[in-house]
């Protein structure tokens, strides 16, 4: 409701009769266009407002407060849902980053998962065994890993959907985790993210030279 409406209400209150509806034709909206009908209804609403009884005013205000409260509640819920999604995605990315850091540490420390340890029953249980196998950082008994079959790994590894987010005006953003990294794909919102994606576009872990 703008200032003009308030002025009009005041005018109606002063100069219009409270029983103004008696002088209306039986079907006042007959023959009007949609816009005219809307304007007429708005005008009638202002007239009604001008002669509103205190009780009707109180009920209307209560109703408006209720509607406002419901709207705010809905908006808060929607906002909370967006924040939950964002936090979930953030947590997944943090977990990915943590895994990457751990993998880097393992690589630097020449960590060998198969290196024997002292049995738990012994006082030194869990320590690296020193029976010729070596301590962490020593490369004893660690076979050099063969050169991986890069083409096969790159082409046929399968990535799993780790997160998806609907971004306003940008469709679905889908994140997939692979052994070599992560892949992000975007698409329209009336489709959905694929659950798995083979890393078909990556060859030898290098940038692909598309004709773009």
């Amino acid at each position, binding site marked *: 409701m703008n200032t003009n409406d308030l002025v009009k209400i005041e005018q109606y209150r002063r100069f219009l009769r409270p029983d103004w509806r008696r002088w209306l034709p039986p079907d006042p909206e007959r023959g009007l266009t949609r816009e005219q009908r809307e304007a007429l209804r708005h005008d009638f609403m202002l007239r009604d407002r001008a002669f509103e009884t205190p009780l009707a005013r109180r009920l209307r205000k209560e109703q408006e407060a209720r509607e406002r409260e419901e709207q705010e509640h809905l908006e808060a819920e929607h906002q909370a849902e967006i924040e939950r999604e964002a936090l979930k995605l953030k947590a997944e990315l943090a977990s990915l980053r943590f895994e*990457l850091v751990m*993998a880097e540490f393992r690589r630097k420390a020449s960590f060998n998962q198969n290196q024997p340890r002292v049995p738990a029953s012994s006082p030194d249980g869990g320590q690296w065994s020193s029976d010729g196998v070596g301590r962490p950082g020593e490369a004893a008994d660690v076979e050099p890993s063969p050169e991986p079959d890069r*083409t096969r790994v*790159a*082409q*046929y590894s*399968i990535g799993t959907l780790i997160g998806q987010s609907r971004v306003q*005006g*940008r*469709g679905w953003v889908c994140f997939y985790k692979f052994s*070599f*990294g*992560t*892949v*992000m*794909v*975007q*698409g*329209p*919102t*009336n*489709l*959905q993210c*694929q*659950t*798995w*994606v*083979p890393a*078909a*576009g*990556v*060859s*030898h*872990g*290098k*940038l*692909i*030279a*598309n*004709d*773009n």
Partner: protein
Amino acid sequence: MNDTDILRANFTISDAAKREIENLRRFWNENVPEPAGVLTVSWGFYHFNSGEKAENVVISFYSESQLPMVAHGIQRVSGIDLVFFTLPEYLPKFEGKVIDHTPDRSFFLRKP
């Protein structure tokens, strides 16, 4: 166009790529819990563990259980049914291109 539009595929698929897609489908059916339903083509942003970044076409499948939800997006390109899962801003990357495959480069887009 908005983010709900399903875009018309503006590319074609070479015979080599078709053969590899069939290999990929076989691999998928042997290694993924749900059988492959329909092929999907999209544009992917790769973030490698090394810190490098890359972009390339992504070939994948919707599983059979997802088919009812995506059936409205299926279109036929070079004799293959597929869903083109991308946004209008990535359309120029596919415009008039051929999806090809070689053992060295895997799937890639080239000019006809």
